[in-house]
């Protein structure tokens, strides 16, 4: 009985945040098909393992954590199986580049090590509080604070790096 109630809660959470988690998945894989696959698999995993959700109030961060892990698993697995060739990389990036208003800036974020990139994404783009970010990433609050600070430092260094190199 308790499970049915949690199930409803989770379903509501999934529907409410489906666009957010799609964007989150997309930020890892950069293409629609794989991002949709990740969303689909994450929902399935969450729904069928609902008994592992200990605290129903934390449903959002729990679901986000599944999405993050699913995306990471996907990248790891695909790195093993399909190395991209030049043709594919070109095909995938051709359309995308036109969209970016500032390619260098965009690359700065993607160039950050994953553990820094994800805290920026969750904190600034998904508007999560520090403790929510910590819950999603299964780390303690102080670790996340430090990581966020370091991420901003790195981003700042990289952003300042760009133009100054050109001046030289």
């Amino acid at each position, binding site marked *: 009985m308790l*499970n049915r109630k949690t*199930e409803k809660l989770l*379903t509501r959470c*999934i*529907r409410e945040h*489906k*666009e957010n988690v*799609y*964007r989150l998945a*997309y*930020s890892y894989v950069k293409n*629609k*098909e*794989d991002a*949709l*696959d*990740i*969303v*689909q*698999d994450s*929902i*399935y*995993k969450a*729904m*069928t*393992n*609902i*008994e*592992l959700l200990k605290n129903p109030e934390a449903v959002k961060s729990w679901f986000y954590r599944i999405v993050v*892990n*699913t*995306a*990471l*698993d*996907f*990248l*790891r*697995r*695909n790195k093993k199986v399909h190395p991209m060739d030049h*043709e594919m990389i070109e*095909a995938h990036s051709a359309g995308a580049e036109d*969209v*970016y*208003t*500032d390619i260098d*800036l*965009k690359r700065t*974020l993607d160039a950050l090590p994953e553990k820094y990139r994800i805290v*920026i*994404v969750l904190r*600034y*783009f998904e508007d999560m509080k520090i403790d929510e970010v910590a819950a999603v990433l299964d780390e303690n609050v102080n670790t996340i604070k430090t990581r966020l600070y370091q991420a*901003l430092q790195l981003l*700042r260094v990289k*952003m300042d790096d760009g133009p100054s190199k050109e001046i030289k």
Partner: protein
Amino acid sequence: MDNKMEQLRKDYTDVPIPEELDMIVDGAISQSLKANRKRSPKYRWIAGVGAAALIFLVTINASTTVANALSTIPGVGKIIKVLTLKEYVVEENNYNANIKVPAITQLDNKELELGLNEKYMKENKALYDKFQAEINDLKKMGDGHLGVDAGYEIKTDNDDILSIERYVVESAGSSSEELKFDTIDKRNQLLITLPMLFKDDHYIDLISANIQEQMKAQMKADPNKFYWVSGAADVLPTDEFKAIKKDQSFYINNDGKLVIVFNKYDVAPGYMGAAEFVIPSDVLKGDLVSHKYIK
């Protein structure tokens, strides 16, 4: 800096939401609700144990028992049956496997029966060993999620035809699905292959052309469907579906129609799953050896 962060945020939120998202979300929710309802209390208890690794091997020695039981009923001749011979189950926190090995019994052609059953056993054993190896790798690398679900489904079982589908769904982040089919002529106790249904190789072109038509028609009728077929938007020429393989997966359905099957990712993006096309018998009639199987 704030300005740049705002720009980055905008890039992030500007990612367009595809139309299919709603359909996929709804589909995944209802599919998993269904899966949850099906679970028996025992299964739930096992899942609850979580960290404890439970590995069991269930060997059902049904083949001889059932055979004897059936042969004693007067009037019932030999009934060709498919049974679950063995089951591999792994239940750990992030790793689970459920592999069911089918076995065919009561074929008079013992060579065929043995050949198929050995193939099923070998392939499933290999799958289980591979799964174990991957778990060990993942554990060394840190941690991950891995699931394997393999089993079988009887697609057709009538007086003439027995078609068995075997599926392997592997999930690690994204999931892959592989389907294999065996179709047996029950009267003559033969394994049916695709080429043997036809006079010559012409069937490859006939079927491929028909499937391309069906793909286009389906995409036109339902914008949520998508196949990698020439003329569809954003299809790389390398991905385009051109022709079926000579020994493409197939089965014969209860109406005596040929059904061609593609694995997930073969002819369509992942969200479409595996694809099946029923080929109208009219299309094939010029090239069929006989109408014995395909009606």
